[in-house]
């Protein structure tokens, strides 16, 4: 099936892996005692969780009077953090759904962890509107359920309610998508486990057997869920932006918000995936699966979406000026040079300037640069939300109600609480579940493993196209064919049996590989 493959694209699985080695590499972190690095990270997360827990307790006990919100600035860090976390949560579903539809094979290396990140980020996000209600235990009021107040229903015309539906749907669908992908991999762990662990994974893997019909349905399900999740992921941040865009506040009331929020969400989401992947691959030694190619691909997305965000910022300024509407003009003038100028400057630097470094190939492929810049981007994206929310609200319609807002320690503590929550959940996930989708990696091994697509030319010479350019087509054929065979013992066997394949079969395969490649959903 994979007799003829292109070696123009660098390998996505390095280290000459066999199927069994893939199982071994990815399952082993769940089977041995955690290393020191993991323990330290967990302690750090738990520390944040504990400190943040005090802040949460203060809020619940004394009410949101413990925050520094005032009559003018009714939304502060809480909604800033909410939008920030939701934005981060966008990358996971984008990677698993949109990249699946676009048949990007590199998604297989990072989709599992990115989806886990999505789910945990959405949990953190949902916490903020919840705690902003003050009486958090009344949060179920936002759902339209039959009640004794009439029944009095929620306001279906309100973007805040649309948000409730968008976030809860997004969370549910992402969770289902993620878990469905996990079931076959849990089965792999189950079949290696013994004793009590076997019982647990037996429960989690739902009795998966790997039957052909089940795989067929599984693929069909993944494809349709991806198709559903694609408009969903775009709708979620669109609806989050409606929270602002449908209001009549100068600076919020702009039609550019939905696309600009979506681009920003993907931007910050990918930055967070980069941060996490760099940590994950080194803690779990998964360098062969989450390669520099993966990091580079994500950095390309970051430079693209970062530029979109940059253009959106400038467009906003232009439109404010061009509108001839003094309130709008003032809102943006105030953002840039008003009392919050420092936040605006931080946003511009981190979001518009810093991703531009990724135009350089060396920087895109450097772990240190990527790590630093990905964090800078997320700081920038936090400032973007803060600028939109706080600067706009602080200048009310009447100058007598103008105000300034700085957070209290409680608000900061709650933000740290979500960091602790996110970190704890992610670290636990790293220990109990396969961080890379085992079955999906195996499915792309023959079209993207280095022993099949050729040696990692890019890694050694720093030039992807080295030795790949020929003047004639014949040279191509002679050179690519040997690469696709052998190197390890098990592969030799493949070579032997394919001898009795007749010419027709071979042709069939050729056409087949010419097409879309062997992504799992391709039928």
């Amino acid at each position, binding site marked *: *099936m994979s007799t003829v493959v292109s070696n123009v694209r660098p390998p996505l699985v390095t280290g000459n892996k066999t199927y069994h080695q893939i199982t071994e590499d990815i399952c082993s972190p769940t089977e041995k005692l955690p290393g020191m690095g993991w323990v330290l990270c967990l302690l750090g997360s738990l520390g944040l969780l504990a400190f943040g827990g005090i802040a949460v307790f203060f809020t619940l006990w004394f009410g949101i009077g413990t925050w520094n919100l005032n009559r003018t600035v009714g939304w502060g860090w809480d909604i800033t953090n909410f939008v920030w976390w939701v934005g981060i949560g966008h990358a996971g579903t984008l990677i698993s759904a949109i990249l699946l539809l676009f048949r990007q094979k590199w998604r297989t290396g990072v989709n599992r962890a990115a989806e886990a990140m999505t789910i945990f980020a959405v949990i953190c996000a949902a916490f903020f509107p919840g705690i902003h209600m003050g009486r958090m235990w009344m949060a179920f009021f936002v759902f339209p359920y039959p009640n004794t107040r009439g029944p009095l229903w929620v306001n279906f015309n309100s973007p805040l309610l649309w948000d409730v*539906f968008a976030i809860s749907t997004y969370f549910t669908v992402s969770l289902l*998508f993620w878990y469905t992908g996990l079931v076959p991999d849990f089965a792999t762990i*189950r*079949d290696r486990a013994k004793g009590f662990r076997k019982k647990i994974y037996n429960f989690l893997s739902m009795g998966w057997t790997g039957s052909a019909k089940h795989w067929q349905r599984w693929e069909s399900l993944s494809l349709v869920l991806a198709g559903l999740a694609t408009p969903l992921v775009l709708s979620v941040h669109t609806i989050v932006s409606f929270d602002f865009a449908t209001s009549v506040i100068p600076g919020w009331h702009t039609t550019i918000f939905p696309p600009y929020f979506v681009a920003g969400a993907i931007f910050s989401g990918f930055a967070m995936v980069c941060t996490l992947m760099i940590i994950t691959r080194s803690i779990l030694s998964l360098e062969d699966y989450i390669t520099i190619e993966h990091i580079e691909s994500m950095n390309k997305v970051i430079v693209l979406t970062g530029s979109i965000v940059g253009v959106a910022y400038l467009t906003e300024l232009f439109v404010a000026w061009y509108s001839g509407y003094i309130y709008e003009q003032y809102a943006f003038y105030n953002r840039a040079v008003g009392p919050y100028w420092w936040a605006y400057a931080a946003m511009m630097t981190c979001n518009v300037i810093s991703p531009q470094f990724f135009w350089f190939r060396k920087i895109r492929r450097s772990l240190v640069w990527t790590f630093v810049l990905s964090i800078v981007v997320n700081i920038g994206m936090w400032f973007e939300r803060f600028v939109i929310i706080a600067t706009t609200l602080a200048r009310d319609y009447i100058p007598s109600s103008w105000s300034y807002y700085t957070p209290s320690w409680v608000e900061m503590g709650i933000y740290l609480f979500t960091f602790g929550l996110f970190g704890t959940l992610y670290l636990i996930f790293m220990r109990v579940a396969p961080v890379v989708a085992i079955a999906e990696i195996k499915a792309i091994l023959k079209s993207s493993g280095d022993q099949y697509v050729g040696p990692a030319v890019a890694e050694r010479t720093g030039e992807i196209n080295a030795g790949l350019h020929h003047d004639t087509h014949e040279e191509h054929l002679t050179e690519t064919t040997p690469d696709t065979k052998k190197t390890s013992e098990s592969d030799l066997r*493949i070579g032997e049996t394919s001898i009795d394949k007749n010419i027709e079969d071979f042709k069939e395969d050729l056409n087949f590989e010419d097409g879309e490649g062997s992504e*799992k959903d391709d039928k």
Partner: protein
Amino acid sequence: MKRVLNKKVLYGLYNDEEILMTAIKQIKKEDADIMDVFTPFPVHGLDPVLGLNESRLHIAGFIYGMTGTTLAFGFMSWVFTRDWPIIFGGKPYFSVPAFIPITFEFTVLMAAVGMVITFYLVCGLGFGVENPYLDPRITDDKFCIAFDVSHSSKEEVEALSVLLERTSAEEVHTKDI
């Protein structure tokens, strides 16, 4: 919940999906009746070779989705025109554009949840279900072709195992499941 099929199964384990595919083609050519094929990952092009019909899961998904659309839109319309009409911001009671986001979200929610539940039901999977399995290495790196030999004679079983071996099966076993 442990599931027992009361079947005697003859199965061969292969080392590679390409060998498996050639083997299945060969076995099909000799008219042997394959019970099932088990693989560690979705093998491309396996369905047509095995003669599996296309999954109808997406049709179910469409129906669930449409149910969601109708439910959400119908409910919001009922609430705002019949049950408790309120004017919000001067909008009409029946303000269709404002209903679109929730209608869309609910459509996606119903389609996704419905499809996932259907998937687990039709596959006979679920938390706590223990389906009988042939070999633990099937979820690792072995590809398995299984025959139901509960009612086969000794000669037939013998012929099938020869067939498996002839198509380069690494191991051939029988198991009661």
